[in-house]
């Protein structure tokens, strides 16, 4: 397996799993307008996942994009643990997405400068969508943080709960470093400073308190996950697994 293949797969996996989570909101949103908004975000994430899987499939040469998405096991998925976390209430979802949207915004901004032309093109396209996602989640954080006492408590609780999954976003392993040195990958650790500034700014506007530094979860890059992922995959992959000979 080439490093570039694995690197591409990691990006695709995070997009797919977040898209899957967002699609669970369909027909469950707090308003109809918001239901539509969340479906749009989900569709953007699936579109991004599809683009990166197509590229990974091309690099791999033996598996299709769908096989990559639907025929790998928990230990072979490399998404951030943050995106597999349960939707919880609407506030939990907005906090999770906000933390990831800020990262994605910074990540795709850098990846669009990659020497790998395909990654760069996919990143530029994704960046446009992510800018809107960030606007959406930030505005909701500000509304919920500044709304009622109940809503402020709910999003503050979600922030405390999810904070431990943010450390992983900035990790670099050997594979990242190797591709960084080739001008292909993004230096995740260098995004942390700007991420902190952007997150802090919105938290102030949203009347929320930045959580204390806590123990940070890790493992996504190695295919180590929380228990959430197994359930996501068993549901998502059901048909492909139950009817391995069928085409859909």
């Amino acid at each position: 397996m080439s490093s570039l293949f694995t690197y591409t797969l990691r990006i695709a996996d995070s997009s797919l799993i977040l898209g899957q989570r967002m699609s669970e909101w369909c027909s469950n949103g707090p308003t109809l307008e918001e239901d539509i908004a969340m479906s749009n975000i989900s569709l953007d994430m699936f579109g991004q996942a599809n683009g990166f899987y197509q590229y990974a499939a091309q690099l791999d040469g033996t598996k299709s994009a769908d096989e990559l998405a639907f025929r790998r096991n928990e230990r072979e998925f490399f998404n951030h643990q943050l995106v597999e976390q349960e939707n919880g209430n609407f506030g939990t979802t907005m906090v999770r997405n906000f933390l990831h949207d800020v990262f994605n915004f910074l990540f795709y901004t850098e990846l669009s400068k990659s020497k790998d032309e395909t990654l760069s093109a996919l990143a530029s396209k994704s960046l446009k969508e992510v800018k809107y996602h960030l606007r959406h989640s930030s505005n909701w954080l500000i509304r919920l943080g500044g709304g009622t006492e109940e809503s402020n408590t709910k999003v503050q609780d979600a922030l405390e709960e999810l904070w431990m999954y943010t450390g992983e976003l900035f990790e670099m392993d050997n594979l990242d470093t190797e591709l960084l040195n080739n001008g292909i990958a993004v230096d995740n650790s260098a995004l942390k400073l700007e991420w902190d500034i952007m997150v802090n700014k919105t938290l102030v506007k949203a009347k929320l308190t930045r959580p204390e530094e806590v123990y940070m979860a890790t493992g996504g890059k190695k295919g180590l996950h929380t228990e959430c992922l197994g359930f996501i995959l068993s549901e998502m992959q059901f048909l492909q697994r139950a009817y391995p000979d069928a085409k859909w």
Partner: protein
Amino acid sequence: MEENVTVWEVFIQSKNGLAHKHAGNVHASDKVMALDNARELYTRRNEGSCIWVVKSEYIVSSETEDSEAFFDPSNDKMYRHPTFYTMPEGSKHI
């Protein structure tokens, strides 16, 4: 029953240079949300390049009962239309 949410009228400019056209309405509690909701609902198929939203309560409409008084008087003012005028034969670019 829940308190009603503010209704906003949505106007979409489909292409740069064209006029904004009424598309429908959305519910939203604030103006940023109104703009976002309008974007989600009315531009899913690449229909827009600019969106206006305005609270429905600010729209003032003429009444159907008044329509004769409002609009008939302009019926007989043909001199507002270029075809009303007779141009000398052979004249061009006018």
